[in-house]
């Protein structure tokens, strides 16, 4: 799974969000390393929606601007949980090996 895709799913883990809120959340989650541009964000959202990992959760107009909200589907929640666990396992193992090798104090 590409990093931006993982970050978008992770951004929606806390509940439904609109486009700009997802951009903010992705930037915060990645420590500022990943800043999604709108075109890239919506390409990712199109793909995730097509694959059934996210779904539309309503829309509203705020100060004349349309905001459409997205949320994780059940399938998306399962995918995010599985991917997160896989990343934790790999990271834990990597840190363990670094400690054994004496590279980490």
């Amino acid at each position, binding site marked *: *799974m590409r990093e931006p895709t993982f970050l978008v799913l992770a951004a929606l883990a806390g509940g439904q*969000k*609109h486009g*700009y809120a997802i951009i903010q959340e992705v930037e915060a989650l990645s420590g500022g390393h990943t800043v999604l541009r709108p075109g890239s964000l*919506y390409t990712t959202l*199109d793909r995730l*929606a097509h694959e059934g990992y996210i779904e539309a*959760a309503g829309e*509203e107009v705020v100060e004349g601007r349309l*905001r459409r909200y997205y949320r994780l589907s059940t399938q998306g929640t399962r995918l995010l949980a599985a991917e997160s666990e896989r990343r934790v396992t790999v990271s834990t193992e990597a840190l363990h090996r670094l400690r054994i090798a004496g590279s980490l104090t």
Partner: protein
Amino acid sequence: MSSRYDWLKRVYPSSDQRGAEIVATMLDASEAQGRPPRIREVLGVVGHGARCRFGLTPDRFGGQVLESAALPGLIVGCALAIFLLVWGEWEPRHHVAPLGTQFGPFVTVAPIAYLVWLLSTLYALGAPRHRRPAAALAVASVAATLVLGKLVGLSPNMALLGTLAALGLPGILASTDLPSSRRVAGSIGAGMLAFSLLWWLGVTNFAHIEIFYWYGDFALNRGILWVVLAAVVVAAVLSVSGRQVLGGTVVLVASPFAFCTVSVIVNESGALFVPPGTIMRAWVTVLIMACGMVGLLVFWMQDLHRSVRMLSSDEPPATAIG
């Protein structure tokens, strides 16, 4: 600031509110940073809007075919580039040396494009997220080589270079995604098949044509009819069995080779020493490929007009977060 970017909404299909939604997101993001939208952001929205309008997003048939054809197109192009480098530029150098100047050990300037194509493909394989710029660089190098060839008087074969450029277009137009290992393996398999066919169609005709390069389209025309026929039959079988995207991919990757036959029709019609049946064979090849393309267009247009709005919802947000 909002009204300045209203035109961006019109890039999107008018049937839904995606343009309004995405432009709002772009303006929210830029205003939060106290600046107008950057050109790259605007171009990104234009690109996404155009893909939405023409049904080329990953959720639509056209987008899936483009994405499926992106890597095979680059790798089949790589096979063509390697083939042309060896048998089009290196091998015939002794035949043409007495005829005039050469580009180092090669016949024309085309090896520049072949080398760039080879490196771009390797880069796209190693860094799939950069596939689109890699494909753009490969296609641009072909265009640059054609211009350079005209300038220095060492023009490559336009039909073969046109085929190569067309193979890179899906890689530019498709949205970037990480290809599965199955797709990578399939693409490499398609490249190996293409190289074998090119060798069979091109090199086995050396007996008849002393210099392959300038007569390359003529040489390929002798057998490409059967390759194109096989591709269209395979695509039809795949489509009938419900695998329309794979069928469309086969047509899209095979169709650039029709350039060779079109070139034969344009250049050889009326020529004195054309073997009987050559022009007819070229027309039949074009006709078969056109049938394949029409099938692809029918599926694409059907999908374009289907009234599914996957990302629309009339319900208000349960809780407005963010």
